[in-house]
């Protein structure tokens, strides 16, 4: 009797689960009447666990853009509706969410993810379902190559690094350059060749080339070698922790040098670990700065501060721009159908966004200007050092 009871319970549980699932399935099949009254946009990003520090500001930027558009009457006479799922920075979660956006919610576009790896997963799904995906952060390779529904809007290393090298050599006159790579860091090993090509193209000399590993702490030998090579500037392509430790070691050995790097150096720990050794000595590039705003940026920063009581960052600005750019393309195409407005989207030229000026090149890669050079100034991090123009790509 006891055993049978248990079995009955199990059967009932199964049945209950099935019943609970059924209406969900049913809903996805039937054409949702609400779809005609709003234009839906799906948010891709992490709000918890990994990479939440990119997703949370991204969501805030996206919400703000949608509210602003709706306050002005929406797009094509319809309101925009954002759907905000949390992908937890996980590749399986994002695949489920992208599929849900495409098949259940029937969104017009997905906005995100901030990371390259996850964007690629969602982009495969978006491309297959003929839905526009617009990443506001993916900087790696092989993203827009997935298909003609895939877009991104962020400062790419292949445009930023040459601009920074140009600034180093032609503005600052630093021709003798040392370069350090972190060999167990994929970001670093990919960025080093970009810098090296640019340095050679612009007539700089690489006087020393060293390697370190992430999570190591002894960099004495490398710094002693650098002292010998006498570079005018050091390019480091890794992350902020090692950047701080390298600069501390340089200070210890009495090597006074400026370090330049990519947005991998953008982390609070740079200041916390490096202290005086990194102050105005570590310079890195990024696509956004809340300092010295342009007229477009100024309004955005003020509205963002008023709404959220904090400074916007690169991700909030890029998600905000993504919504605005998509809305503009829909208006121009007079359609919210991704198959139609994607052609308008690809024509974007010199769009004055809050994260800088954006043009989509023929291969849909974004060319953004200006490049912001950031550093640590006293207690302020990141602090704007200089704004430099993005040099035109040689293609």
């Amino acid at each position, binding site marked *: 009797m006891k055993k049978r009871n248990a079995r009955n319970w199990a059967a009932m549980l199964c049945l209950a689960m099935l019943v609970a699932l059924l209406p969900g399935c049913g809903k996805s099949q039937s054409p949702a009447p609400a779809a005609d009254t709003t234009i839906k946009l799906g948010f891709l990003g992490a709000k918890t666990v990994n990479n939440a520090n990119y997703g949370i500001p991204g969501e805030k930027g996206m919400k703000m853009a949608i509210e602003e558009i709706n306050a002005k009457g929406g797009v094509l006479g319809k309101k925009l509706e954002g759907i905000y799922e949390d992908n937890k920075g996980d590749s399986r979660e994002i695949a489920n969410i992208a599929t849900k956006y495409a098949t259940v919610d029937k969104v017009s576009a997905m906005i995100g993810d901030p990371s390259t790896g996850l964007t690629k997963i969602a982009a495969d799904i978006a491309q297959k379902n003929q839905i526009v995906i617009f990443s506001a952060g993916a900087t790696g390779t092989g993203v827009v190559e997935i298909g003609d529904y895939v877009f991104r809007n962020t400062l790419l290393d292949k445009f930023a690094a040459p601009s920074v090298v140009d600034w180093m050599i032609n503005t600052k006159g630093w021709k003798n350059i040392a370069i350090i790579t972190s060999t167990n860091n994929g970001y670093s090993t990919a960025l080093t060749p970009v810098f090296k090509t640019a340095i050679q193209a612009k007539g700089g000399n690489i006087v020393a080339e060293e390697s370190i590993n992430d999570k190591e702490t002894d960099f004495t*030998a*490398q710094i002693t070698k650098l002292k010998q090579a006498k570079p005018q500037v050091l390019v480091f392509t890794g992350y902020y922790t090692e950047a701080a430790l390298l600069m*501390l070691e340089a200070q210890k050995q009495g090597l006074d040098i400026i370090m330049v790097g990519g947005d991998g150096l953008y982390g609070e720990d740079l200041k916390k670990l490096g202290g005086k050794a990194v102050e105005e000595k570590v310079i890195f590039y990024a696509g956004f700065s809340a300092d010295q705003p342009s007229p477009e940026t100024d309004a955005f920063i003020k509205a963002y501060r008023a709404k959220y009581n904090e400074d916007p960052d690169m991700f909030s600005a890029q998600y905000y721009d993504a919504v605005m750019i998509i809305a503009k393309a829909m208006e121009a195409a007079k359609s919210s159908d991704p198959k139609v407005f994607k052609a308008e989207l690809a024509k974007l030229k010199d769009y004055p966004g809050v994260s800088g000026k954006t043009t989509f090149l023929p291969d849909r890669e974004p060319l953004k200007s200006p490049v912001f050079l950031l550093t640590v100034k006293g207690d302020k991090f990141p602090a704007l050092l200089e704004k430099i123009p993005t040099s035109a790509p040689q293609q």
Partner: protein
Amino acid sequence: MIWQQLLNGLTLGSTYALIALGYTMVYGIVQLINFAHGEIYMVGAFVGLFLVTVWDANLAVAMLGAMAVCMLLGVLVERIAYRPLRGKSSRLSPLISALGASIFLSTLMALIAGVNTRRYPAVQDVGSYALGPVQLSSMQVIILLVSAALMIGLQFLVAHTRIGKAMRACSQDLDASALMGINVNRVISYTFAIGSALAAAGGVMVGVYYNAVWPYMGTLAGLKAFAAAVLGGIGSIPGAMLGGLTLGILEIMGVAYISSSFKDAIAFGILIIVLIIRPQGILGEKINKKV
């Protein structure tokens, strides 16, 4: 440059040596690779950091405090993770238990302190002196002097005290020592305590010198020190010192004169060659198995 790099190598090597001593002492007596030893070194660095930031302690107090805490921790790890398994199971079980203790300690610290790298506040003026072509920082002097003092102290303890004599006896034959009336468990506890204290001293000094402390710092340092102990001849105390210094200098010279991308490959390549030629390590005793 060669003198500067040699000094860099000696400094790095002495920290390896301090950790390697713990591996070698424990192995010498119970034939166990104590994989949690690297984590004891990490805990030492964190205890020092705590003392310095919360109680404003100076370097000497921080180091002594860390040594005391880690002595207890080392003994505790032995009591909980190794002693219940000793003599009752295969040689593999304590090894797995050691790996477990290592993972437990590093994740526990990650929970308590967070996974970010922290820096020591300036406890020691980073004065630096020019000695001919060599730039010598005050922290390098401290590391070299303290390591030397600790190693000499250990050598004295092992050679000239009653507990040292008991340790030597146990390393020759654990069962026979027990039969002669030596309290073997006590000797083993002492061994763990001393080894852990040395690692803790190393942890604090490395934390101050490189300005970086994080919960997983023990894994890599532990592996390197273990390699150093094997290089010098595991079970041999002078061997661990020599092995640590050799490995440190090899690594630095590899970066300085060959290429920094092959740093570990060079150091460990040489280690393999040494072990092929002398399987017992540089100062290890040759074990003649009776047939």
